[in-house]
């Protein structure tokens, strides 16, 4: 699992952490957040709060996957759009950049992140529904969970946890709530390059969703991930991407194919 991301992010020069102007790709959405949320892989591994509590990066990668799967499932059961799920996942990733898995139950934090993402993305789900669905999902193997969560004591306790957790998550995130995703640049790029193949869009979209479950979105900006996903999808489908005059498509993103290939080679 640890080798999920091929290549060496530092050498990829995808503006992982810096603010160099040359990387202002045309498809980048301006992000005025005062906090930098992108870090090279080694820094992520080295400074992880979970590591200090004895959770190694292998185990953290496993935890990361497990809350992502949980959030995807929870989001689908709550019938929120994919963007809301993506925001919840990003909140969760960012939370564990600054907090330890040893002290914060990942399924509770994930539940909080979904509740919060619903409100932030203007697709709110009532707290009661979030708690019911989350609890039954977390206790999938226990058929009595469904009724148990309807008991007042348990429900109230869960509710207090979520409400307390919401404050913790907000503070930990420094109230940075506006999350950009690769979806918009992806769609824009596919339109712009006149790539009409539906299959390509679908495959690229799936790669973006796969990337969401890894620490990729903590390392690279959304438009870079979009570029990588398109590149990989084209390679996968053996489709030639158009070259628009002098400029090859990927130059719009300020990344080279070799860099992209490096990033996604093990996806």
């Amino acid at each position: 699992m640890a080798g999920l991301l091929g290549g060496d992010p530092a050498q990829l020069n995808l503006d992982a952490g810096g603010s160099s102007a040359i990387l202002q790709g045309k498809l980048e959405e301006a992000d005025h957040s005062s906090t930098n949320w992108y870090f090279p892989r080694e820094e992520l591994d080295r400074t992880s709060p979970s590591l200090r509590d004895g959770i190694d990066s292998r185990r953290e990668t496993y935890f990361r996957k497990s809350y992502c799967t949980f959030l995807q499932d929870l989001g689908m059961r709550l019938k929120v759009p994919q963007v809301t799920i993506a925001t919840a996942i990003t909140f969760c990733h960012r939370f564990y950049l600054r907090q330890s898995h040893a002290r914060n139950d990942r399924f509770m934090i994930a539940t909080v992140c979904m509740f919060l993402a619903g409100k932030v993305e203007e697709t709110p789900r009532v707290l009661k529904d979030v708690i019911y669905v989350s609890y039954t999902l977390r206790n999938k193997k226990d058929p009595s969970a469904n009724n148990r969560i309807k008991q007042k004591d348990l429900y109230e306790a869960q509710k207090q946890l979520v409400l307390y957790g919401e404050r913790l998550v907000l503070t930990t995130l420094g109230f940075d709530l506006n999350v950009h995703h690769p979806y918009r640049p992806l769609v824009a790029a596919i339109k712009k390059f006149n790539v009409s193949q539906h299959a390509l869009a679908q495959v690229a979209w799936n790669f973006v969703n796969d990337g969401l479950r890894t620490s990729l979105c903590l390392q690279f900006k959304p438009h870079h991930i979009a570029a990588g996903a398109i590149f990989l999808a084209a390679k996968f489908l053996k489709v030639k991407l158009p070259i628009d005059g002098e400029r090859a498509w990927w130059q719009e993103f300020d990344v080279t194919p070799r860099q992209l290939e490096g990033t996604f080679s093990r996806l």
Partner: protein
Amino acid sequence: MLELKNGIGAKRYVKGISLGEGTYGVVFKALDTQTNRTVAVKKIRLGKYKEGVHVTALREIKLLKELRDPNIIELIDVYPHKRNLHLVFEFMESDLEAVIRDRNILLSPADVKSYMQMCLRGLAHCHKKWVLHRDLKPNNLLISSDGQLKLGDFGLARIFGSPDRKFTHQVFARWYRSPELLFGSKQYGSGVDIWAAGCIFAELLLRRPFLQGSSDIDQLGKIFQAFGTPRETQWPDMTSLPDYVEFQFTPAPALRSLFPMATEDALDLLSKMFAFDPKARITAQQALEHRYFSTDPAPTKAHLLLRPASKAEGMRPPPELASPKEPVVLSPPAKARRISLFPGVAGAEHIHHSKESKDGSSAATVGETPSDHSGMAITDRSYLKRKLDMDVHFEDERHV
């Protein structure tokens, strides 16, 4: 990397006097000991709301962090303290409502131009970032001690731009609502803010609210009295809007007759901001490039604008537009009125009418019931107004 920015929270600010009561809590004046700046701290009670941190607070935080512009209020910091969330804003001395209301202030054409330019600049920035303000009114246009006008109160603002997104039409105080909103449109765009800005432009010229409807239908009536009933050619999409009702045809009076003192350029811009068809309405950026802003007189420099002596409560000047006969509704409303959306709120109709009589704010379409003047506290009214707004909002948008 792991340090929280501005992590010192409560200790950083020395609390001063109360500045006013907002919908979700008190606003205090305070001193930022880190920068020695005077700030306004909006305290939001967390315990009060059963759905956690209220979505209006989250919106305000999310959007204001994205929007940095001289004509948009700056959100300096956010921190939780005890059972409250604190939003720290730059301190604003006054607001445009106080300016318009202050009889000691004479607004020259250059002053009006200056206020409109600042308002449109802030708006152009919002729209560039795909943010709709949705609550423009003089009271939410704040004025700093150096005379800069800044858009404030982003509690109703939204990201727009995805064509499939459906919005609630229950936004804006009624007097600032565009005809497409009044006809129930749910896929509106930046034109709604432009219409409201047009109403503010008119209010600056007239020194009183321009179109003071007492219900949504009456609001449309007032709009058609002023600009004539739109013809199909003027606004082709009108008849397919959800709450469209046919009005008896009224011809448009000359715009000049409504604004006898305005220049030709001002009238031309005004008429473009009041285009019926939102697709034909001028954008904020185009409005800034309109010749009104480049011809004499030049806009007054912000620091030279006169400011009201105090922010104290005062009554609005008596309104009433010189009105020709009321347009008549010809067909019944297309669907049941929205008041039925909140059966649980006893007396909502009564209370929010009393609110309407004050500044045209309302939450629901209530037909043509005349306003009454019950003496409900302003904070209660605005709380209820917001509450109703948000409930409808929630109903409308959770299914998207």
